[in-house]
């Protein structure tokens, strides 16, 4: 139980994918403008990352490792992720049309979200058991959702500010993301 708590804290705060590891920046800058899309994207990523961490760990330890094909890891994982995203899209379209409509374009984009492949590689390389790999995936994506929502709050304030013309838009967003990331540096002090 203690291990799980430490694993979760580590994945959400200390090694936050976006603000500490700089992974998944494109959706971070792209969808954080509106709260609804930020939530939708975050939840879709949460689902896909958890599911794909589970499947890729199994594939790594039951198929690739016994056959000595570890070098195919990247190719295999990206294919698994792409097909899981496709599957999620089909299931949502069939059974939950409102959610499908809400996620729209963001669903297929998850395939090229670095955070998904990062969580899968991280889980398969470093996690000892299927359960901890899945929890690690879930918590990594929770950290993604947290950063997205925090930045959404910052973004709404930014829109009401006056900036010099050269700082307008992405430069101002990146600098405020840097300040947010500085706050997360505080968690590095935890010795787990």
């Amino acid at each position, binding site marked *: 139980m203690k291990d799980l708590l430490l694993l979760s804290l580590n994945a959400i705060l200390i090694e936050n994918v976006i603000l500490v590891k700089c992974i998944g920046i494109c959706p971070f800058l792209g969808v954080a403008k509106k709260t609804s899309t930020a939530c939708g994207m975050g939840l879709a990523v949460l689902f896909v990352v958890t599911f794909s961490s589970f499947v890729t760990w199994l594939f790594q330890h039951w198929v690739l490792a016994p056959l000595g094909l570890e070098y195919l890891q990247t190719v295999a994982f990206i294919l698994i992720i792409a097909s899981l995203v496709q599957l999620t899209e089909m299931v949502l379209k069939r059974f939950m049309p409102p959610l499908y409509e809400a996620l729209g374009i963001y669903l297929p984009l998850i395939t090229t979200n670095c955070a998904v492949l*990062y969580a899968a590689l991280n889980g398969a390389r470093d996690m000892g058991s299927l359960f901890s790999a899945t929890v690690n995936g879930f918590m990594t994506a929770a950290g993604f959702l947290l950063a997205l929502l925090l930045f959404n709050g910052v973004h709404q304030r930014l829109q009401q500010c006056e900036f010099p013309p050269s700082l307008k838009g992405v430069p101002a967003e990146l600098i405020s993301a840097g300040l947010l990331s500085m706050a997360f540096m505080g968690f590095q002090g935890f010795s787990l």
Partner: protein
Amino acid sequence: MKPLKQLKNALLTQNPVLNQLLGMCSVLAVSTTVSSAFGMGVTVTAVLICSNVFISLLSPVIPQQVRIVSYIVIIAGFVTAAELLINAFFPSLASSLGVFIPLIVVNCIILARDEMFASKNSVPASALDGLFMGLGYTAAIVLLGALREVLGNGTLAGIPVLGSGFRPILMLNFAPGAFIALGLLLALVQKLTARLGQKGE
């Protein structure tokens, strides 16, 4: 399009990182030193050239519906080859780039060039486009790497340049510094673009 104009586009006006804001993750994460930034730039350029050539060759036979997945598999193949080569010949680069080598698969620059350029153009033109776009990416990441290494560590490619009295800005070696430095660099680019635009009128 003329090669010279293509080169100018890729480096200055249509730089994949500084103007199109593609592939930001690796730019932020790997630019702590000039040498790792350069290693990353060369790796991405090599993968980009190979996948552009391959996709330009294969695009007539790839069915339209599954093209994105096919592109990703081709890119993943070249990235795996690059990873094995780096692990074998440059172990120190491999340890400093870490998980960012396999993550080249999901680097938007490569997929964007494959989809927008290589699938519609001839093999030599695609190879050249891959080379130029890769150079644009390398230029941007090395520039940011140089900025962060000089101010954050007082060295450039490992050689001390700012003398012993210089107090390094340690924050630049970590994620917050990366975000802020890239933000300032983009602000400079916007400023220059605006000034050039005024002159052009």
